[in-house]
């Protein structure tokens, strides 16, 4: 295990299907930021049959609320937040085409099952390594919900973001007790 694999967004099926939990990946492309309230609003729109502010098909969500952007910088520090708080919203977004999620910590059995059903992947970034991860961000643009401040949805162009595959498209979960690469 643990060779670096390249991963691009929008997600490519041939790259996704080659992932195994425990792999280290280097991700490049577009990711959309979203945390608690943004998730709540996206799912509320889906339930009301309204369009989303961006197309989720084959896209990646990064669970992050960055610190404010200092002058002359692209973005402030931006490390992952705890993914399990978003578990309740995730299956609905996977059903809508979401393919990659980036956060930290374990997911619920329901989310792991949905990842398997929709052939998606859950990746973890190092919690607290937020200044380092900010260096991977080459562009940042507001997409929706500016009233949420750090919780607004941003479109980030990232290069070579260092991540670990926590749940692969086969549903193998790095955080599960029976995963041999966990100990």
């Amino acid at each position, binding site marked *: *295990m*643990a060779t670096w694999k390249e991963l691009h967004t929008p997600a490519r099926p041939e790259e996704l299907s080659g992932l195994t939990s*425990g792999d*280290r990946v280097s991700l490049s492309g577009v990711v959309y930021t979203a945390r608690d309230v943004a998730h709540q609003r996206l799912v509320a729109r889906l339930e009301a049959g309204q369009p989303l502010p961006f197309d989720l098909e084959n896209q990646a969500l990064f669970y*992050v*609320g*960055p*610190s*404010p*952007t*200092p002058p002359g*910088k692209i973005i*402030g*520090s*931006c*490390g992952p*937040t*705890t993914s*399990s708080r978003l578990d309740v919203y995730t299956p609905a977004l996977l059903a809508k085409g979401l393919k990659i999620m980036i956060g*930290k*910590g*374990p997911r619920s059995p329901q989310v792991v099952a949905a990842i398997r059903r929709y052939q998606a992947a859950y990746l*973890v970034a*190092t*919690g*607290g*390594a*937020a*200044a*380092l*991860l*900010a*260096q991977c961000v080459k562009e940042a643009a507001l997409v929706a919900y500016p009233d949420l*401040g*750090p919780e607004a949805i941003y479109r980030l162009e990232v290069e070579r973001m*260092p991540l*670990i595959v926590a749940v692969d498209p086969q549903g193998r979960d*790095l*955080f599960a007790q029976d995963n041999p*690469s*966990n*100990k």
Partner: protein
Amino acid sequence: MRELDVGLITEAVARLCVEACCELSADVRTLLEKARTEEESELGCFVLDQVLANLEVAAREQLPICQDTGICVVFLEIGQDLHLTGGDLTAAVNAGVRRGYQEGYLRKSVLSPLTRVNTMDNTPAVIHTRIVPGEHLKITVAPKGAGSENMSRLMMLKPADGVAGVKRFVLETVTAAGGCACPPLIVGVGIGGTMEKAALLAKEALIRPAGTYHPDPAVAALEKELLVLINQTGIGPQGLGGKVTALAVQIETYPTHIAALPVAVNLQCHVARHRSVIL
């Protein structure tokens, strides 16, 4: 009686907020470097390499180490012979937090607990004051992130649970937190007093220089034993498996009631921020 203008407190708090969030103090950094040499799991080493590289980038770029720059916990040790002039002490501390979080481009994460409306300037701080002998003021600023705070717990044990019960509760808390509290952790434990005293002791344990032991040899022995037990869980850096789940266990104790054994466990992620100054 010595006089101190509260404006100086505002300035000090503002500076400490920025320093604490952008540069990890040497005590914690030293423990992280030691952890890297001890860790054997491949993913654990990957995580610790990133954690250490992140400290360099944060200091160089003057960016927060972690985007969660916390709710600001401020400890004030006020000399009883000191006279504070020029305004309200609490307002002065909050003015410092406001200025530090604004000028330092730190995230404003504080809001009303029920309406969830953000105060937009990271105030109010959580302020703990203690009156001590002397004529100086010691300020410690410890911004606390929610990831690890959310996994902290308090339990009113029965006296019959004893030291074994304390150990069990600490281990259960660390295990339940798993990767969510961003290990490697510093584990602050408060034992004794009353419910609120135990919680405060656990927080005070976290602002002790990281890696120092309690002066009472029996308590220090318990700190060392718990650290070994926690690192045998295999939770590892970020919960991805490994030897280093905690960097240190730090305990504070206080006498309690004959019928009581309060224990609080305050978990601290590896971004263990605390900065002090004496005015």
